[in-house]
């Protein structure tokens, strides 16, 4: 071995250098990690130890036009849990199931929410009872990852009375989450599911806040107070609506339990919807935080179809209420003079080709002018008016009156009215030779290929009440929109108006619904129903000369319009505070 001092000194120099290089490299590596990449690791360390707990924002309160509450928020408790993996979530849920009374469905839902957003606390019970919460609080130490939170819960003080337009809220679904419209939403959040709640979701939902809990490696919270300041949730601004809650509740009240149908009241000058009710209704409070299976089944199986909104979703042949439209088209097209009588007087029916079309009045009306034809709703007159207009012009006229469109009411569920787009419609439907001009006769009296929503008819009468200016029906207080759909001369207008007024006078089809000291105008209707008893219509407004309210009522299986007229006149009387009101529920 060579241990000459020179050799040893050389090796010592080499070794010292190697040592120094080794340490410099190490220090360099630490410099890179601790100084250059410092921020990135600080972030990771924060992510490690800070568990963000979302704080749901209270939804915007919905008010009626007088500041009465339609929808508000009550405190409720939600139970959620954080889990590092699906397996760990499963075992935690299995442990919790007896305490929380979780069904297989709840467990599946929780796992689904977890898979969507594993870093977010997974909601197990969106609305836990106080009993469950108190039991959980006792066992808090056994379940360190459990989060019990006070959350705002939607509440509708008048429940079923407002369900028809306010809708309800519920947990966002899987398909909603895939919708780009809900891109910023997270599983477990509550969203508007129907009605105003859905329509104005972007306004109503508010901004979720965050609280930061410091947790250890096992997810156990270690400190009460947050190590980082909370981001408080921002509540949404209130939503002011045009609804008159008092009138709404009155409307609900006069629909007896046995009646089914819908009613809407509109201010024709602005399009403001004052009341909207579909009977029978349902309780939106029961829908909040998950629809109970039993209740939902009961609603689905109800033959009166409470889940179908009869004002905006149900479409019905408008019957005689359509004669206003026929008159308007005839006058616009200039095919009928104001004092003109039709060639064939009414003898209880009208022979067209080889078919005999009946008038509803078997005795016949004799020879009438337009005003009286409207008042007496003479079918024979309108058959001939329809023929004078001609099918093509008639269809085009209906389209111009926007009766083929939605009314544009600010509710997401509205169905489109049914009205032919042109004569081709019949060619397509029945074949070029499969139909005859008799269709014109049907359309002229509001039957045939014509099916309207209640809100659409209310819009038509509102347009007449506003001299041709059709307002967009609006529940929320936004900027009114109008569109001129026809224009009448003063004389034309007054002839039609007089005809409608007389409907609610002695001898008119709704004469029994007249109100002392108030001039009403309107039209009854009977929608022929192949599946059962006919539906009864009434659409009208008051005061007739300066209309402040338009009401459209449809009673399913109501046979004819007189009962609908009773309801409408009661709503009008209540709103205009005119009385005494004649026996409202009198079987007329």
């Amino acid at each position: 071995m060579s241990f000459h001092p020179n050799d040893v000194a050389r090796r010592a120099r080499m070794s010292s250098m190697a040592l120094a290089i080794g340490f410099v490299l190490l220090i360099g590596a630490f410099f890179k990690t601790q100084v250059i990449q410092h921020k990135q690791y600080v972030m990771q360390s924060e992510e490690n130890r800070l568990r963000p707990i979302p704080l749901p924002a209270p939804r915007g309160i919905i008010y009626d036009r007088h500041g009465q509450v339609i929808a508000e928020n009550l405190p409720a408790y939600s139970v959620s849990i954080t889990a590092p993996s699906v397996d760990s979530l499963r075992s935690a849920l299995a442990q919790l199931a007896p305490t929380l009374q979780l069904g297989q469905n709840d467990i599946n839902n929780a796992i689904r929410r977890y898979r969507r957003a594993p870093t977010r606390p997974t909601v197990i019970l969106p609305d836990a009872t106080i009993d469950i919460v108190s039991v959980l609080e006792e066992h808090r130490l056994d379940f360190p990852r459990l989060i019990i939170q006070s959350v705002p819960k939607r509440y509708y003080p008048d429940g079923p009375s407002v369900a028809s337009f306010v809708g309800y809220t519920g947990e966002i679904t899987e398909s909603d989450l895939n919708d780009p419209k809900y891109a910023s939403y997270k599983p477990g959040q509550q969203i508007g599911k129907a009605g105003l709640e859905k329509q104005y979701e972007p306004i109503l939902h508010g901004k979720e806040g965050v609280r930061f809990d410091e947790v250890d490696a096992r997810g156990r919270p270690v400190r009460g107070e947050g190590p980082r300041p909370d981001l408080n949730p921002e509540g949404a601004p209130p939503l002011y609506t045009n609804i008159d809650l008092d009138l709404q509740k009155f409307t609900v009240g006069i629909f007896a339990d046995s009646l089914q149908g819908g009613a809407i009241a509109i201010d024709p000058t602005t399009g403001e919807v004052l009341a909207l009710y579909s009977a029978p209704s349902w309780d939106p409070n029961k829908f909040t935080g998950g629809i109970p299976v039993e209740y939902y089944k009961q609603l689905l199986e109800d033959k009166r179809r409470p889940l179908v909104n009869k004002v905006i979703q149900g479409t019905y042949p408008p019957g005689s209420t359509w004669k206003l439209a026929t008159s308007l088209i005839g006058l616009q097209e200039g095919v009928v003079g104001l004092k003109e009588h039709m060639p064939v007087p009414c003898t209880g029916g009208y022979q067209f080709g080889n078919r005999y079309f009946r008038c509803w009045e078997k005795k016949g009306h004799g020879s009438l002018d337009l005003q009286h034809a409207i008042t007496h709703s003479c079918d024979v007159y309108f058959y001939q008016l329809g023929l004078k207009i001609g099918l093509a012009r008639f269809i085009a006229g209906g389209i111009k009156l926007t009766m083929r469109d939605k009314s544009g009411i600010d509710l997401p569920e509205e169905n489109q009215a049914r009205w032919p787009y042109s004569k081709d419609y019949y060619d397509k439907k029945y074949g070029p030779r499969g139909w005859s001009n008799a269709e014109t006769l049907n359309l002229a009296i509001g039957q045939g290929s014509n099916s309207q929503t209640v809100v659409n008819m209310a819009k038509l009468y509102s347009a007449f009440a506003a001299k041709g200016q059709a307002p967009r029906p609006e529940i929320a207080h936004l900027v009114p929109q109008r569109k001129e759909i026809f224009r009448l001369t003063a004389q034309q207008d007054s002839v039609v108006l007089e005809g409608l007024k007389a409907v609610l006078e002695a001898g008119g089809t709704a004469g029994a619904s007249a109100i002392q000291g108030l001039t009403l105008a309107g039209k009854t209707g009977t929608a022929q129903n192949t599946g059962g008893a006919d539906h009864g219509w009434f659409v009208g407004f008051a005061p007739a000369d300066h209309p402040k309210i338009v009401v459209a009522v449809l009673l399913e299986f109501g046979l004819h319009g007189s009962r609908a007229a009773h309801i409408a006149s009661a709503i009008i009387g209540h709103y205009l505070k005119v009385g005494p009101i004649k026996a409202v529920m009198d079987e007329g």
Partner: protein
Amino acid sequence: MSRPIVSDFRLLAAAGILSLFGVAMVYSAGQTDTPTAVAILYKSQILWLLIGLGVAYAVGHSSVRFIEWMTTPLFLFSIFLLGLTLVIGKGAGTAASTKSWLAIGSHRIGQPSEIAKVTVVLMLAKVLSNHRETPKSLLDLWKPALVVGIPWAIIMLQPDLGTGIVFIGIFFAMLYWAGVSWPLLILLASPAISLVLSFSVGLWGAWFFVLLALVLWYRPYLIEGIVLMVLNVATGVVAPMMWEKLAPYQQNRLKVFIDPSSDPRASGYHVIQSKVAIGSGGWFGKGFTLGTQKRLAFLPEQHTDFIFSVVGEELGFLGVTIVLALFLWLFLRITKIAERANDSFSSLVAFGLMSGWFVHVLVNVGMTLNLMPITGIPLPFFSYGGSFMLASWLAVGILMRISGEGRGSALSLRR
């Protein structure tokens, strides 16, 4: 003859400051939000330090000749203890399935491999210093290879990859210090290098040509050259091919057998948390005992394998630099001692002990930044552990003695 209590103040200062620093970090490692058994370990660490100081004092007052005389029996005794672990050994901590601990019942006494690190250095020094000629051929190295090979084999059977690496590091460092030429060292290491490079055919091919050139230039015995090349082919080509043939679960078993802490999920998590702890420390750290990663139990083994991560998190880059500078100071000082030692045995012992520590520091500190594989190897003077503290201070005592008897020392001047 009266001897000064402290013969090498700088050596003592470096080791002492590192130990006190280490005890403070063990204390901090115990300060977690959810208290664990680690909280009180700093007390036993202090106790072990005091015992270690006593041992160092005693050894410091013996003589190098006495130590040399004791070397063979001590070496044989430590081999015996190591052998015993294979029979009655117990695991601990992350390496619970291994047998590196001697235990009576469930009470663990100590890790013989820590003591063996010192005795192997002594024995190797003795064997190498008895060589008259500088080894020219690999066959000349059979004796030193045996001295390291026997305890190394036992340790790999425990299995304890980390300690095995330390032994190999010590072996090569001491051969270098003994004057074995570079080419011979490379030839010696070539099968291992082949194994490491075997993952890439190109790299291994290049290495093989370098090796061939080296063999032709160095001209070892023919047989030796052939065996060497065959070994390289075996480790670089055949071993990976056989490895590929194994089913994944068999590969995992082998991996875990060679290195119990190689569970990829667990160790991956450990290293990430360690890097996060160190990186989030920044320039000056989060403050002593205030590291959140450690406090909230994200950092695993924070009092043993990953204690340096606590340094990085709580004391920042500044603390890391100070600790590493202290280690460098200690190692340079020991290199000096080795250089000035009176005889080849002393010189080799000093350099061997230093190189052992250096491998520890390099692997342990590198591991916290994911620069080195996780092998569960402790940081000298820092990591909690009685045997290692004792062995380290035993080494300090030996170094004090060597330094005291070396050239330029107060002691040698007085002679």
